[in-house]
């Protein structure tokens, strides 16, 4: 009888290409996703070394970070961005890599289209030059972000030298209350263990609350694993996973599907397998979460007050909190509820999928956005945009006074002109509230699509649960 293993160890073991004394393990990469921002220097490196892409058939590209979210009939006005986009399309052509380019009807955020197209599958290793690659872990894949040197390595060899990470079980049991979402689970985890709490680890999210989540919700949870410092985060595949995948363009078909299903069913963690660390979260104890500071670990339940730095014992930690409150222009002990908001952003690889848009539309339907607030709704992909329009969600957003845009990363990373002005506050469904992340001097409150939509209506940080009652 072999030693019981976690899914993380199974994924590792099945991808070992070579092990040599003194060197990291060489692991094989099943899917390499590429985007315009972190790849140009990697392609240039291939050219300098005279190398080809080893497996273009395991590689897929799209544009998302630097593209505008204005109508696609318009050109990319920013010439630096236009050059970067053109460079990706040219690189893909030269090296034979399929690419959903700027004008593709399937273009979208790289972490949205991988799952959408059925490219992301259980049991895979998935990499991308982007730290939110952990999103794909929702399928029971080992998926992690890499730098540009590693992008070049994978393009050239389809392999990566890696050291094994520690295993970290995140056990979420119980049921979420209405108004509390997958986003609140992950924001709660990060607020508990801090943004370095998962460094050196891969999370496995388990427990009844995780099992009850849809694939889109699991993607939201896995997406932000990096915000706790974890290299990756994943959920073992189950019937929810298989139902989502069946029939997608790149998913296996017929006998291949049956064979894949038999393999995938072997992936979940064995009974009795040991993790290096475990944390337990009671889902029924959670409230909607919101961040108040300048990293994703600075989060609180929405009805609680802003923490007091004088209660923090570690001096550098205390100084960080003081610095964060100064940047955010917030006072310790104040509530965040009721704080004025200038912008609401609904989008990003964290929360731009159909269920996110439906949730936001459910709150906005028949209501008006507060005139003091600019609201941007940015679907994660062109497919999602079409589906949302087919369901009439675009009409709900527009009638409420929100801006309905084209697919891309948009104001999550503010590379494309979608950004906050200095001093402005946003409630954002994205993943990072670092200083200047959404525009120099901009201030970000991270929250769920429900909280974002509720705050759009009142123009203030709002608990969606109170909004529902007043309706």
């Amino acid at each position: 009888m072999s030693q019981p293993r976690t899914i993380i160890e199974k994924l590792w073991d099945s991808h070992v290409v070579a092990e040599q004394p003194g060197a990291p393990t060489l692991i094989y990469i099943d899917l390499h996703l590429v985007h315009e921002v972190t790849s140009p220097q990697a392609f240039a490196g291939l050219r300098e070394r005279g190398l080809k892409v080893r497996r273009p058939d395991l590689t897929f590209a799209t544009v998302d970070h630097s593209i505008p979210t204005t109508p696609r009939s318009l050109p990319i006005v920013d010439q630096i961005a236009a050059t970067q986009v053109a460079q990706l399309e040219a690189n893909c052509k030269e090296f034979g890599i399929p690419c959903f380019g700027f004008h593709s009807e399937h273009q979208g955020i790289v972490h949205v289209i991988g799952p959408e197209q059925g490219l992301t599958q259980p049991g895979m290793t998935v990499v991308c030059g982007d730290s939110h690659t952990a999103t794909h872990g929702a399928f029971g894949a080992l998926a992690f972000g890499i730098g540009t040197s590693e992008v070049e390595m994978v393009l050239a060899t389809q392999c990566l030298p890696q050291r094994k990470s520690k295993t970290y079980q995140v056990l979420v049991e119980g049921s979420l209350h209405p108004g509390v979402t997958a986003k609140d689970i992950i924001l709660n985890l990060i607020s508990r263990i801090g943004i370095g709490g998962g460094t050196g680890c891969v999370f496995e999210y388990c427990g009844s609350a995780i099992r009850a989540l849809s694939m889109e919700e699991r993607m939201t949870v896995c997406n932000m694993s990096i915000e706790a410092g974890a290299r990756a985060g994943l959920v073992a595949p189950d019937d929810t996973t298989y139902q989502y995948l069946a029939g997608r363009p790149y998913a296996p078909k017929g006998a291949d599907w049956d064979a894949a299903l038999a393999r995938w069913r072997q992936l979940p963690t064995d009974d009795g397998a040991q993790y290096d660390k475990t944390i337990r979260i009671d889902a029924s104890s959670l409230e909607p979460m919101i961040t108040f500071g300048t990293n994703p670990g600075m989060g609180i339940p929405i009805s609680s007050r802003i923490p007091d730095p004088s209660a923090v014992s570690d001096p550098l930690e205390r100084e960080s909190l003081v610095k964060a409150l100064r940047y955010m222009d917030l006072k310790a002990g104040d509530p965040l509820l009721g704080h004025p908001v200038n912008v609401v952003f609904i989008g990003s690889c964290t929360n731009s999928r159909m269920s996110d848009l439906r949730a936001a539309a459910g709150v906005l339907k028949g209501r008006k956005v507060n005139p003091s607030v600019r609201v941007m709704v940015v679907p994660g992909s062109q497919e999602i945009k079409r589906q949302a329009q087919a369901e009439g969600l675009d009409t709900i957003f527009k009638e409420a006074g929100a801006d309905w845009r084209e697919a891309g990363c948009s104001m999550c990373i503010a590379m494309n002109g979608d950004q906050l002005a200095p001093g402005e506050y946003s409630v954002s469904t994205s993943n990072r509230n670092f200083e200047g992340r959404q525009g120099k001097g901009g201030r970000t409150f991270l929250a769920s699509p429900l909280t974002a939509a509720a705050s759009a209506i009142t123009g203030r940080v709002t608990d969606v649960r109170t909004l529902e009652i007043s309706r």
Partner: protein
Amino acid sequence: MKKFTTLESRVVPLAVDNVDTDQIIPARFLKTISKEGLDRNLFFDWRYDAQGNPNPDFILNQPRAKGAEVLITGDNFGCGSSREHAPWALTQFGFRAIISTSFADIFRQNALKNSLLPVVVSRDIHSKLFDAVTNNPDYKVKIDLVSQTLTLADGTAVEFAVDAFAKHCLLEGVDEIGFVLQQQDAIKAYEAKRTGSINTLAAAP
């Protein structure tokens, strides 16, 4: 990759925990297709005011930063995005080593691939060194990769950990890619037994 063996340098103190890569180089400067000129945008939003003038309070704008090759900073340096532009910008500015109590995983990997040495020390050593450096702009440390030691001005030698393979690459000045390209046989053997692969070139929707 440039070789890294030893280093003796003054040290720049940056008293911030959790410095994220959006601070090291803001995303709006990532639209470039080259690696050049990124040092101009290093710590841009801390380094320059709204009018683009240097902020005199920021440590990199002070005379002590000129020519210094070592940065000492707070816990969890380099968290956030995977952008390798962060170590590119830091090395172009002139840094060759960063001392902290911990580094984010992706940043550490990216740094090692660009001859930028992450040096992890204990909290005690960190706070002792940080205070000494803050009080003395001319304070110098020595870093010896062969013996994996950081030597403080008072002669205290502190050992630090480095992945053995990364150390080898740094000492020789070689990229990992050459090492992996030599393993074609193992890669082919692995590919021959893989099952259930996708094919991104076929089945296009």
